[in-house]
């Protein structure tokens, strides 16, 4: 019983990171990222560091995804030596926006922030 409680407690602390991704997000984004071993969390933090608000990050992401270009990317040029520049996504605009929304929600730091005891 004690072990079970400890396991539940441990799982609950990891819950935000391990929340299953939305199928749309998984299909359009995370599936490929995982294959290519892209550091999603790092990339998101870089967007966050520069653009601050979800609206501005969303705008920057859409710009990049529609027209992938080193100039539009948040990552440094050295990043593309290891991870080649991707092709433009062939998604409808609505679906692309929704995927980006899911992406932002999935990585949103607010969900992981807690107050110190």
């Amino acid at each position, binding site marked *: 019983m004690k072990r079970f409680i400890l396991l539940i407690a441990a799982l609950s602390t990891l819950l935000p990171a*391990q929340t299953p991704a939305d199928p749309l997000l998984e299909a359009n984004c995370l599936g490929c990222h995982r294959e290519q071993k892209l550091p999603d969390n790092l990339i998101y933090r870089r967007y966050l560091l520069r653009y601050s*608000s979800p609206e501005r990050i969303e705008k920057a992401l859409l710009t990049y995804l529609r027209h992938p270009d080193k100039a539009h990317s948040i990552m440094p040029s050295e990043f593309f030596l290891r991870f080649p520049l991707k092709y433009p996504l062939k998604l409808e605009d609505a679906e692309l926006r929704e995927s980006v929304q899911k992406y932002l929600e999935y990585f949103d730091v607010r969900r992981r922030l807690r*107050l110190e005891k």
Partner: protein
Amino acid sequence: MSESEKRSLIRFLVIYLTSTFVLFALVSWIFYHATERNIHQQQERVLESEITHILTRLRTLHASDAPTLLYPKNTGVSSAIFDVDRHYIFGNFSQQPSLDDAADSEVLRRIVPVDPHYLGAAYLLVSRPFDDAPMCALRRNILLFMLLGGVFFSVLGYFLGRLFIAPMRESVEQKNRFIEDATHELNTPISTILANIEMIEALEKGQDVREELGRIEIASRTLSRIYDDLTFLSLDHPYHRQIVELDLSALVQERLEYFSVVSRAKGVNVTSHIIPHVLLSIDTDDAMRLVDNLLSNAIKYNRNGGTIHVELTAHQLQITDTGIGIPPEKIATLHERFRRANTSEGGFGIGLNIVHQVVQFYGFDFEIDSEVGEGTVVRVGFSELGIRNSE
């Protein structure tokens, strides 16, 4: 204390205490605001330190891969982060704050820009209740200071006021005493004259009236002397002196005869040893005032049946009496105007003041030796330049 003295004291106290209070209030006000600014700055510095700490923690959290990010919770300080569009991200306020909340004077509140935006934060709002305890202590101390200062300066002002009105009080008392003495001093000879005139009128024609006339003469001479003294004092002697080679021996002899009637009336035996033709450069009226006042005092304060011995040499005039004497502590202040060693006899207390002015003007030496109940010796030593003995 008279009504006018009370009024003067109250006016002085009102002006003194009001000006002191205004000065104190001004100093306290400046001190209060300077200290208040210091206290604010001190608490602002504490808040600055907290801000630095929170920013460091945000940077660490931003770099963390941990599934849970623990937002710093500093004791006594509330903080929150906002994105670039001023939307709330996270914080430890009890109620979700806004960057546009109105300032509260009881709370220290700072909005700090965050760049780069750790955890997406573009603004950090930090708030800390203002610690009012030092301000309360400051207000209490200033109030105490004002209270103690007020009590201290009130007491000091009262004593200072008493001190300041003391000369005025003494002057008023002297004037009152002078008026009383003058009234009494004038009343005696005038009454004597009137009484003797009535007696002469009542006597039948051909009767001997020499005794009555003698009394009238004494009273008239007394009035004349009072008049001379008062004129001298009221003029305050800025008059023109005619310094002449005066035969002091003759003058002293003449004044002895002048006072003989008065001294006989009091039963005082006057003896003299006068070297003839002692010449002195002096104004005749001054010399007369000097001798008259000394002789008058010697007679006035003598006892019935007492003696006076007048001795004039080339260098000094000495008058010795067997009067009531003067207490030693009063000798030093006898020359002051309206000062009297003894009030048992009539007088204004101006005689020795006149003597003092004369001896000072001519640079004579003046000395009084006295023993209470035994008598008094008064010596006037003449300066060498003023003396010339023809012998």
